[in-house]
């Protein structure tokens, strides 16, 4: 069997370990592994009539090639946000532009199917979040054998309790929060720490829970900045070191306000978030008159080496994905549920993104994590 593997969406730590483990598992059993570069863009931009595009968009993976890749973060295959089912003129390779007169999104799925056939790829392992995996589902619907691996530092893919990258993102955030404490304390300030997480507040909520933050503002629950100011001033008064801190999701918004976005939408209709932390900092300064530390953790959450939990999950997901394909099972998403490795129908990604379980984990009145009755809960609490 000849298996293709690719990574799409934002990079996270653990992707290379996943690529390595899948390669070793498949090649060890006498199969072939082909890396497709730059996510779905690799298949879209590959022209079967032009051999050079095959060299630039694919990479034959052997145990020798992958031997040392798991020691670094990112993805050796590179990544993109391209969605071949919705390609705008600006992202379209010249050889597919025939007859193009407008900038309407076009569906190039038939081209991708042709490319897969040309590359003699029998099955695919795509590593991605809900956007990348929505096209994996499309290929599955077209009859391509697919087993998908969920990765996103936001931990927002349906059907699984865990996505590769989440643990490292939270680990980093907790470390940075503790580093900021000395500055916040020395200057007796209010600190606003903005974290990536798109439309899910889970990175904000879990980082705050694990680092003992005073408050956590999450994407799912619009917040009143006056109320937040009152809470933080109260927290500061009660803190012997005279400071207070809150996390805030990049996708958070004021009561009655909209998410703060910039830039243009990508092929999945998503725009860059960010800026709500700065706005909140300004508002807190105005209301309280206190000095503010505003810090975005941003890319530092997902760049660099994976922690051991992300390695554990990435390697096991890879072995499971290869296992499934080699035994002839496909159309599945490898997943963790209630602490066990399982596989679920890939159709779960149709449900869109998963949000933090506000009822179970968040106090909407106090703006902070509320975790009770842990007995019997899964490792990641829901």
């Amino acid at each position, binding site marked *: 069997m000849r298996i293709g593997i690719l990574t799409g969406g934002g990079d996270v730590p653990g992707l290379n370990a996943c690529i390595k483990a899948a390669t070793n598992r498949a090649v060890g059993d006498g199969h072939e592994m082909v890396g497709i570069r730059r996510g779905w863009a690799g298949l879209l931009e590959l022209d079967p009539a032009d051999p050079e595009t095959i060299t630039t968009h694919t990479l034959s993976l052997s145990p020798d090639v992958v031997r040392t890749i798991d020691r670094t973060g990112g993805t050796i295959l590179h990544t993109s946000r391209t969605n071949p089912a919705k390609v705008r003129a600006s992202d379209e390779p010249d050889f597919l532009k025939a007859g193009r007169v407008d900038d309407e999104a076009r569906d190039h799925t038939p081209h991708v199917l042709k490319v897969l056939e040309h590359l003699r790829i029998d099955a695919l392992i795509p590593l991605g979040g809900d956007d990348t995996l929505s096209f994996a589902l499309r290929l599955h619907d077209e009859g391509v054998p697919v087993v998908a691996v969920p990765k996103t530092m936001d931990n927002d893919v349906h059907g699984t309790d865990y996505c590769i990258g989440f643990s490292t993102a939270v680990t980093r955030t907790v470390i940075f929060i503790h580093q900021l404490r000395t500055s916040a304390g020395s200057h007796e300030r209010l600190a606003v720490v903005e974290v990536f997480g798109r439309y899910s507040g889970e990175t904000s909520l879990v980082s705050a829970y694990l680092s003992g933050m005073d408050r956590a503002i999450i994407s799912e629950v619009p917040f009143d900045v006056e109320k937040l100011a009152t809470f933080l001033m109260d927290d500061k008064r009660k803190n012997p070191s005279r400071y207070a801190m809150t996390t805030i999701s990049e996708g958070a918004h004021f009561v009655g306000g909209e998410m703060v976005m910039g830039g243009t939408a990508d092929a999945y209709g998503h725009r860059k978030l960010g800026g709500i932390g700065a706005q909140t900092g300004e508002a807190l300064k105005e209301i309280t008159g206190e000095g503010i530390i505003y810090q975005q953790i941003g890319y530092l959450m997902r760049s*660099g080496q994976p922690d051991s939990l992300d390695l554990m999950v990435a390697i096991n997901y890879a072995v499971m994905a290869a296992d499934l394909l080699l035994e002839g099972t496909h159309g599945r998403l490898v997943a963790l549920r209630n602490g066990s490795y399982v596989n679920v129908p890939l159709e779960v990604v149709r449900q869109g993104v998963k949000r933090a379980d506000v009822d179970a984990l968040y106090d909407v009145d106090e703006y902070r994590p509320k975790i009770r009755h842990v007995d019997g809960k899964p490792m990641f609490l829901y």
Partner: protein
Amino acid sequence: MRLGVLTGGGDCPGLNAVIRGVVRRGVRAHRMDFVGFQDGWRGLLDDMTQPLGIAETTGILPRGGTILGSSGANPYRFEGGPEKVAATLERHEVDGLVVIGGEGTLGAAARLAEDGLKIVGVPKTIDNDIGGTDVTVGFHTAVQVATDAIDRLHSTAESHDRVMLLEVMGRNAGWIAVYAGMAGGADAILIPEQPFDLDECCHHLRRRHASRSSFSIVVVAEGAVPKEGTLELPESLLDENGFPRLGGVANHLAPEIEERTGFQTRVTILGHLQRGGSPVAFDRVLGTRFGIAAADLAVAGGWGRMVARKAQDVRDVPLAEALAGRNLLPPELYHEAEVFFG
């Protein structure tokens, strides 16, 4: 002898090592006792003190920040400020004051010393921009944090074929940017001492992307300035000491670079992360040695002077001399860093 100790200005890793060094040396070698003034000069203006002895300074060596608290308050910006400072020192029967600070805090110290107050200074700032000394407490920790960030950002930059801008602190000096940039292998470094031409920087990036790499890391000092007439940047506001409020220049540069090169460009502003956390070994040793030297200098009556590092030695120089000019990055060092651009 009874010494007062204060830490002023932005906090930085290694302050606690200095405090511990002064107290340990003072108590053991000179039978001193101490009083801690809280929140920089504010503690002397508003008479806020805390006990400071062996017990209070035990276990603080590896901790970032300052156990005394800090502020940017300046006695010369308050009505009757200098008199209040003198009165507070008298009330607590303090024979001398150890002032640990950067340009703003030590500037006030130098003026007060000229007016007859018994003060010795200890230079601290992550920016490394104080004259009279080769290096200041906190600089090497900030460089390490920035270097770690560059190392990590490589994986994301490469995976996405992007240009990553990392903005670091340093005020009007490029020390952190050049040290971290050299240590992390930055593909371009923009600093205040060498006004940049963005087109030249973009040329480096295009050449690099055309030949061997699909990504680049650019380190931008917060005080970096474009060559006159090459790029308009919004004017910055002034802080309470009259310095321009820095930070965020990378946010203005990223869209310009993206437009000129066509490469996706993203920004990370390291901000307060480079001031917090545990000091690296160098800053612990430097802080400890400065602390010892400050206690010895007080006993020797070296008022109006600042402890300093010259080559491997810890010495002292007149405060006024140290503050006469900023320590900026020598051009030769930037030219060494340039070898690796593009």
